[in-house]
């Protein structure tokens, strides 16, 4: 029969329409307005999962975000797979397809359950703790087992075709939760004129009012909801966001909202107007004030067998009946510690089903709801509780007995009542999750038997989240909070015109968490505290016996509150049990903290549009298109795309990188090459004190650099360690152009600014990044001058335009600055032109360069050429622990400069003066075919027992086509005094390379080639 548990009338589902869905391959029917959970219950599906550790059958327990068992894998196609969806939060849609996350081979006949409860033995409490303490290799064994048995959901193996979005928003008042408190708060703030965002995680706004028995203004509560929503929707500054979960609350009222835009419609976002809609959206909201109206979660009681399908939260039973028109069983026993639980029994009876009995833990229950139950003739057993649920795949009976809460013992005979459903209520826990994300620790309130949110600046808790539960008071409290929040944002206080809600006389609740059993906890049947992680009361007791006294330790030891559950149902019961075992109070055991996210967020929503080609911005030089057209392979240097090498294809055969680099190197050394060097950082420095400033930030001298001249400069931090280098040219007396490494451009500019702004504000000097304004092309090689001569009006005579000079003129008809600096060791002209002229100049150079063998080269060749000359790359050959002395660059250190330039003082500290520091040297492998590994460690004695003392490491290593040999730059302890000595490089594969320490300048040590 279709939907055996669906009631004939009632609920907010649309019975006129049928939806078909499948669960574990079985087809079922439901209605629009159902969640997957309510539809499963309507169809009488008891088992929705197998438990993580013990493989026990599990059913739906709750009706909201706190559901621990109904975790499913969604998706009818591979690309549409979504793991870890709560059935209680997933709206039903046509053709929805879901599977249990756990259960192998299936939930009904679970193999793991039969293998002697292997899980239980295999995973005692402290499993994670002990596993991580065990040899690492054991984890692999465990992990395979756990994954197979537990499932844990899986991510799709195909690309997600959906698109996701981010939106950044500001508002005056963000109201989290659209139950009675939230609606009322939004109304108060909205009426005041504040920009309000009201979010609610459910399909429909209204929260508890959607299943409430109470009336507001003498009408059903839902009528009031509709009225308020209508007014809010007409307020221009109010944004209503259903299906939106506030998942993280961060500093300074920054809240992340996860809006599920189409997840209630289909697996993959449907198309609208030919375009795929956004599946979900992350809103990053900066709120003036946050009103936390997140309500309260009902606490289940902890009794034996409380995980057998058919055990449910009392409030959830009411919600399924009243909101979804589903009675999830036929015969109910209620176990409660408070009046509120009675609602489920009343709803059950009114749905025409049998209430077998109510076990009330209180000696003299006497509230209004109690009287209503009595009036219906329901049997109430005072001073008792359900101590054990009997049944295997579904509850078959409840064992009820009188209990002594204080003494934690069963005091009367045990009566077994046949039933198929047990509802339990242990009171309510305010949903303080968001409040504690910011680091504020919830505080225990003994009167309310729950943790209350602690003050967070700019946040007001209200309603259930504030420990206010009576409907009339909730609405009033919400209004007050909303009005105050509006006022804090500068809007006028609102006078409340509160609706009429009948006061309900309520009896006091008792504090009951774990229900005693005839047998001691450690020997009795399992009482579950955290169903998602299969944590039992016995496990917590065991943890306290093993010496774990803090609740934080107990949690880690037992895994309570782990996973997607985050302790929504179990944490406080777990704390109460730990407190009982330790003979302390709950607040003495600790407090409960929660971390973002409140419920799982899909990676898609986190990523938004920052994926694929939009993952990270890419920076292109002005000549990029030419590089692409000429077959360049690219290398990422920061965000820049730089040509790495230009492989040629001859007779259908494409060069390897090795071949291309060899050809490019020879072209530069023998003819002429060209490099796109536009990515080098360029900083324009101006002001009367520019020269003085340079003298303070560089290690070398700048006082006498004349206009037209260029100088290499080395920059240290004040600890004496090199952090960047480059050339700086004097453009005019008060005007300089500094170049930095590609990666260091932004860092160096900030470095100059911090010194100017914080230490030397009296210096009149200004800095500006001009990296993108100027394109740079390096023309280098013996034929460079001839090629340049064809295109420039600048006098290229070697005596008038010398090495380390720069000249202004025209190149290829456009204004240019040409610098005679060389990073290759060859004759070189670095041409800087306005970026938008660069492609023209580049092409002109090629038009004229062919006859000279002009060859484009990339970063790989640049590296080989510079390393052959011993030119360092800051950040590759240095690592923040290398001084200019270590680099052997005494010539760039102006010890006698009049000021104490940055880094100078540190160079005379005892540590920087050590002679056994790691010093820059060259390494020549004994076998020329060997290219040493960058990062390889250097030892002096290869026969030394392991661990060998490590004496240095390789920083740069290449094959040099010019030297016909591998060669490397390295730092070696005391290396400057070890020229000619042999060092050893033991490799992972057991090989030991031999290399000779040589000068880091492998080619043209006198620098004659660049001076021609």
């Amino acid at each position: 029969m279709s939907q055996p548990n669906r009631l004939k009338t009632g609920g907010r589902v649309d019975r006129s329409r049928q939806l078909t869905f499948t669960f574990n391959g079985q087809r079922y029917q439901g209605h629009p307005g159902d969640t997957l959970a309510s539809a499963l219950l309507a169809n009488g599906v008891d088992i929705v999962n197998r438990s993580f550790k013990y493989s026990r059958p599990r059913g739906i327990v709750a009706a909201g975000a706190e559901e621990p068992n109904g975790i499913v894998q969604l998706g009818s196609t591979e690309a549409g797979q979504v793991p870890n969806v709560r059935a209680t939060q997933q709206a039903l849609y046509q053709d929805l397809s879901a599977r249990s996350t756990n259960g192998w081979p299936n939930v009904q006949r679970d193999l793991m359950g039969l293998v002697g409860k292997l899980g239980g033995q295999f995973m005692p409490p402290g499993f994670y703790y002990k596993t991580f303490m065990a040899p690492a290799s054991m984890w692999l064994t465990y992990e395979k087992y756990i994954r197979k048995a537990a499932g844990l959901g899986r991510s799709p193996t195909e690309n997600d075709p959906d698109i996701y979005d981010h939106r950044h928003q500001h508002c005056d008042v963000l109201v989290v939760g659209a139950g009675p408190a939230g609606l009322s708060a939004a109304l108060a703030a909205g009426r005041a004129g504040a920009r309000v965002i009201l979010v609610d995680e459910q399909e429909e706004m209204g929260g508890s009012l959607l299943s409430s028995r109470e009336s507001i203004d003498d009408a059903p509560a839902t009528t009031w909801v509709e009225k308020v929503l209508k007014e809010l929707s007409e307020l221009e500054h109010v944004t209503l966001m259903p299906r939106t979960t506030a998942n993280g609350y961060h500093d300074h009222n920054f809240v992340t909202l996860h809006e599920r835009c189409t997840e209630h419609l289909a697996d993959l976002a449907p198309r609208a107007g030919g375009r795929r809609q956004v599946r979900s959206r992350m809103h990053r909201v900066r709120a003036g004030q946050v009103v936390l109206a997140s309500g309260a979660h009902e606490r289940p009681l902890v009794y034996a067998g409380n995980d057998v399908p058919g055990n449910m939260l009392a409030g959830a039973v009411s919600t399924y009946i009243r909101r979804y028109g589903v009675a999830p069983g036929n015969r109910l026993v209620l176990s409660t510690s408070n009046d509120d639980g009675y609602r489920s029994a009343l709803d059950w009876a009114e749905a025409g089903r049998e209430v077998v009995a109510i076990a009330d833990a209180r000696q003299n229950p006497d509230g209004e709801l109690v009287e209503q139950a009595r009036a219906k003739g329901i049997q109430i057993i005072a001073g008792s509780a359900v101590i054990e649920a009997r049944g295997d795949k579904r509850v078959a009976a409840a064992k009820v007995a009188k209990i002594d809460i204080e003494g934690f013992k069963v005091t009367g005979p045990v009566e077994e009542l046949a039933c198929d459903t047990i509802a339990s209520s242990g009171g309510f826990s305010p949903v303080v999750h968001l409040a504690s994300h910011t680091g504020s620790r919830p505080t225990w309130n003994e009167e309310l038997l729950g943790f209350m949110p602690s003050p967070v600046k700019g946040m007001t808790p209200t309603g259930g989240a504030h420990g206010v539960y009576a409907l009339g008071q909730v609405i009033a409290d919400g209004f007050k909070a909303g009005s105050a929040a509006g006022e804090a944002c500068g809007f006028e206080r609102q006078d409340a015109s509160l609706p009429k809600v009948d006061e309900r006389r309520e009896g006091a609740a008792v504090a009951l968490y774990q229900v005693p059993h005839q047998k001691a906890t450690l020997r009795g049947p399992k009482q579950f505290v955290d169903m998602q992680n299969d944590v039992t009361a016995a496990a917590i007791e065991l943890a306290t016996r093993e010496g774990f006294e803090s609740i934080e330790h107990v949690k880690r030891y037992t895994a309570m509150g782990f996973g997607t559950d985050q302790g929504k149902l179990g944490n406080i019961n777990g704390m109460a049990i730990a407190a009982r075992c330790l003979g302390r109070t709950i607040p003495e055991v600790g407090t409960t903290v929660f971390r973002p996210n409140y419920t799982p967020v899909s990676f898609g929503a986190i990523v938004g549009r920052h994926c694929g080609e939009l993952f990270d911005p890419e920076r292109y030089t002005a000549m990029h298109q030419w590089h692409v057209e000429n077959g360049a392979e690219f290398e990422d240097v920061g965000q820049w795309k730089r040509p790495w090498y230009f492989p040629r294809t001859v007779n259908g055969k494409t060069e390897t990188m090795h071949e291309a680099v060899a050809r490019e190197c020879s072209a530069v050394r023998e003819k002429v090459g060209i490099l796109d060097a536009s990515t080098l950082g360029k900083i324009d420095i101006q002001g009367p004190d520019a020269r003085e400033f340079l003298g303070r930030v560089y290690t070398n001298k700048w006082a006498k650099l004349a206009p037209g001249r260029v100088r290499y400069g080395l920059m240290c931090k004040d600890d004496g360690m090199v952090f960047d280098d480059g050339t700086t040219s004097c453009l005019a007396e008060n005007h300089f152009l500094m170049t930095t490494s590609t990666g260091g451009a932004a860092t160096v500019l900030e470095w100059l600014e911090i010194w100017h702004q914080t230490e030397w504000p009296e210096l009149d000097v200004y800095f500006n990044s001009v990296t993108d304004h100027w394109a740079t092309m390096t023309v280098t090689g013996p034929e460079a001058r001839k090629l340049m001569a064809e295109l420039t009006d600048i006098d290229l005579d070697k005596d008038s335009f010398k090495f380390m000079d720069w000249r202004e003129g025209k190149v290829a008809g456009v204004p240019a600055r040409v610098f005679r600096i060389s990073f290759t060791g060859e004759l070189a002209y670095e041409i800087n032109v306005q970026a938008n002229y660069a492609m023209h100049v580049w092409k002109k150079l090629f038009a004229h360069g062919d006859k000279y063998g002009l060859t484009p080269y990339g970063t790989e060749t640049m590296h080989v050429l510079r390393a052959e000359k011993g030119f360092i790359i800051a950040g590759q050959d240095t690592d923040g622990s290398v001084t200019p002395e270590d680099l052997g660059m005494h010539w760039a250190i102006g010890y006698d400069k009049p000021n104490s330039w940055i880094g100078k003082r540190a160079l005379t500290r005892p540590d920087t003066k050590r002679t056994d520091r790691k010093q820059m040297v060259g390494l020549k492998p004994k076998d020329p075919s060997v290219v040493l590994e960058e990062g390889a460690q250097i030892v002096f004695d290869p026969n030394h027992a392991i661990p060998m003392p490590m004496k240095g490491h390789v920083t740069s290593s290449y094959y040099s086509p010019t030297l016909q040999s591998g060669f490397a730059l390295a730092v070696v302890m005391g290396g400057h005094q070890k020229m000619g000595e042999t060092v050893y490089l033991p490799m992972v594969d057991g090989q030991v390379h031999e290399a000779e320490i040589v000068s880091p300048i492998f080619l043209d040590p006198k620098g004659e080639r660049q001076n021609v």
Partner: protein
Amino acid sequence: MFYIFCPYCGEHREEEEFHPKGQAHISRPEDPEATSDEEWGDYLFFRDNPRGVHHELWVHAVGCRKFFNITRHTVSYEILEVYKMGEQPSITAENYAAQQGAASADKERNASQAKHQEGVRA
């Protein structure tokens, strides 16, 4: 994710626009050559790590590129004050503690008021 008031731009901006640069008011010794190795080591390497009121140097890196100071509570992360370079904080660990002790009645009201008073020029 902080929400930071740049005293030069005169606006609150998202933390992404700023870089933290460590403890504020670390001034380089006037004459580095005259310092002992220990003094120089202190200047280079030693920083406070207080629980409570802390003065920090920040830069509006992708905004106006100006450096300024933030007085921040390292437990609540509340920004108590921002002030320009060359100015001194009006809120310090000492007077903050005194103020918290004295005005417990006004505490909540004070805490709910966004405070970004200008620093006192030195």
